[in-house]
């Protein structure tokens, strides 16, 4: 099954809509609830990052019998130092983003903890792609 969602810069009103839709789909497919939670937490963190730190982008999800692969691709500005960004507590969140309850610097570390495979690619000035895979068994 292939699903696609668009997300927009600073669109906090709808932040989580894509994650929520994928959560419902996985539940309907009877995926183990603990695994659904891992997928959804990771995806939600990536979705919020594309809204909070980037100029929006696309979410592509591919679900088959034994795994889900989700790719969140945004339109920039890119992450200058991925290693720095992956460390707990590191954040460049704006005051506006903090007011929305984000900016703990826990999102990327949270993603890493919840997925079986994570691939973060970023080019400054172009964009960031966060690809993650969670296996169902």
């Amino acid at each position: 099954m292939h699903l696609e969602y668009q997300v927009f810069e600073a669109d906090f009103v709808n932040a989580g809509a894509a994650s929520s839709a994928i959560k419902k789909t996985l539940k309907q497919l009877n995926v183990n609830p603990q695994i659904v939670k891992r997928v959804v937490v990771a995806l939600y963190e990536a979705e919020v990052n594309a809204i909070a730190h980037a100029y929006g982008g696309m979410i592509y999800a591919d679900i088959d019998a034994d795994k889900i692969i989700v790719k969140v691709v945004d339109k920039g500005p890119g992450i200058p130092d991925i290693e720095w960004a992956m460390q707990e507590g590191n954040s460049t969140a704006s005051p506006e983003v903090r007011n929305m309850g984000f900016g703990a610097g826990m999102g990327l570390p949270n993603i890493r903890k919840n997925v079986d495979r994570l691939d973060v690619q970023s080019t400054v000035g172009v964009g960031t792609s966060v690809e993650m895979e969670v296996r169902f068994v």
Partner: protein
Amino acid sequence: MTLKEIAEVLEAKVLCGHDRLNEEHESAFASDLMSDVLTLGDYNPVILTGLCNMQTIRTCEMGNLDIIVLVRRKKASEEMIEEAEDEGMVVMESDFSMFKACGLLYQGGMQPIF
């Protein structure tokens, strides 16, 4: 503590989930940052937070966290209550500060997660 006892000690107004007030819960977690509440793995503690917007409800939905206490006189919007109701959550509002609310629940026997 039962959710009813929690509402009583916090002098909280229950906004939704009235049918769940007899449930007994052991642990609580307090934060104003949403990624923090998504680090809790399979636990479902009572969440105390001063963050009061749609993201509070959304984030808890993503983390399967379904008991939310809004502290510091924060008032939930109609939209927040509707979404929380749809998700079967319990949401209450307390006028107490985060410190006081946490202290009272700790005194009442609620446990931290770590």
